[in-house]
């Protein structure tokens, strides 16, 4: 790990260098697991694959453990090394990133639970046409935010922020459609609520991807872009 430095810029203290490297590895492993959980939860939902939904739910404790372990490593680095500048931004990024990743995993689990509930219904409705697009966008946003982190690419992270509005618009359109459907056909309410919840969870995943992207921008160039225009 060399934060904003080139590959040759290594820490004079090699133990410190190893600790920062280990933290980075842990973040990447955790992000990889969470990315797979989103993809699996969405596929389980789309294809009514109950086995895949259960497997997704079973992965969650692994993410919880990863969060606790990464937090502990961050605290150890803060206490023992008093990191500065890029290293400080990296460790504070890690603290926030693991929280966002853990919540994304929880939301993926919630999508998987809705997939199970829908599969359990006698006549589940066909998936809403925009659902696939929302899932695709939310997954891609998380992937891109992580990629921006790996490449230390603030421009790539900024591109993630711009996609959040599209997800919000799609979700609100889907919500209006579902509401109209449920008002018109009361028998669709049970399924409609499940579909709406799954879409909401995906929309929340996109929000956390936005957080991740904002954190990456601060890590890379020290610019705080959170709550622009709202503070």
């Amino acid at each position, binding site marked *: 790990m060399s934060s904003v*430095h080139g590959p040759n*810029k*290594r*820490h004079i203290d090699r133990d410190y260098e190893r600790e920062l490297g280990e933290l980075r590895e842990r973040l990447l492993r955790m992000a990889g697991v969470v990315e797979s959980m989103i993809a699996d939860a969405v596929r389980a939902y789309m294809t009514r694959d109950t086995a895949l939904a259960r497997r997704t739910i079973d992965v969650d404790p692994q993410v919880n453990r990863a969060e606790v372990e990464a937090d502990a490593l961050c605290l150890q680095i803060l206490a023992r090394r*008093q990191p*500065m*500048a*890029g*290293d400080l931004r990296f460790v504070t990024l890690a603290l926030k990133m693991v929280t966002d990743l853990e919540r994304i995993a929880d939301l993926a689990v919630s999508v998987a639970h809705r997939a199970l509930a829908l599969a359990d219904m006698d006549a589940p409705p066909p998936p809403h046409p925009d659902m696939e697009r929302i899932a695709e966008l939310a997954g891609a946003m998380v992937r891109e935010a992580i990629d921006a982190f790996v490449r230390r690419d603030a421009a790539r992270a900024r591109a993630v922020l711009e996609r959040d509005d599209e997800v919000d618009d799609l979700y609100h359109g889907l919500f209006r459609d579902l509401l109209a459907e449920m008002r018109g056909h009361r028998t669709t309410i049970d399924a409609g609520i499940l579909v709406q919840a799954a879409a909401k969870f995906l929309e929340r995943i996109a929000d956390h991807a936005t957080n991740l992207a904002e954190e990456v921008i601060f890590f890379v160039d*020290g610019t705080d872009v959170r709550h622009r225009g709202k503070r």
Partner: protein
Amino acid sequence: MKSPPEITAFGVQGLVAGFGDKEVLHGVSLNIPARKVTAVIGPSGCGKSTLIRCLNRMHELVPSAWVRGTLRLDGSDVYGDEVDPVMLRRRVGMVFQKPNPFPTMSIRDNVLSGLRLTGRVPRGETERIVQKALEQAALWDEVKDRLDDPGTSLSGGQQQRLCIARSLAVDPEVLLLDEPCSALDPVATARIEDLLGALRERYTIVIVTHNMQQAARVSSLTAFLLAGDLVEFGPTSDLFTAPGDPRTEDYITGRFG
């Protein structure tokens, strides 16, 4: 070089300084604001001490030392022909790395020594001056019952605060501190840092330190010197979280190329 908009105590322009044929500072320009703590950091030999020794003209006490450039205190040329260096040093006090109370003097006489060197101590005022300086240096409560004891009977941290009291007794405008805590334990260091927090309301303080956490804790502004050049000067909160220059980043994170 960008400097924040504040009342300038020291205006330094193109300061070049050295010893004999060795140039230590290669043209440093910065405005040191009044009544704030400015930290100067950088690796050994980068010119930190030379820079602050130019500020009160202690640099020229070394026989081969020389200096060029402009250095103004409150707008007046520090190196002007009419300036008496002794009187300047009264305005710009200095505290050194190792506490250096005068070994043969009592605590009281140590506090008064600066005043006695630069002029007469007003009759009947000595006790008030001693108490005030020791109070400002947060030492009064610890020594008020033994003012006649030798200065060297105090602990290292107390001796350093005695040296600060000695500097404050002459009522300076600026306090220069050259690694004031490097010989002190963490508790004594915390006391000095706490003291600086109180003194910055009244004095312009410039502190040279190798301890970057200390610079981050006590200062409003930080200057990073590298091999005689000023690399970066700005708000401490920015410099230690998101420095503007990659050389600053490498130094404060402890990296090499």
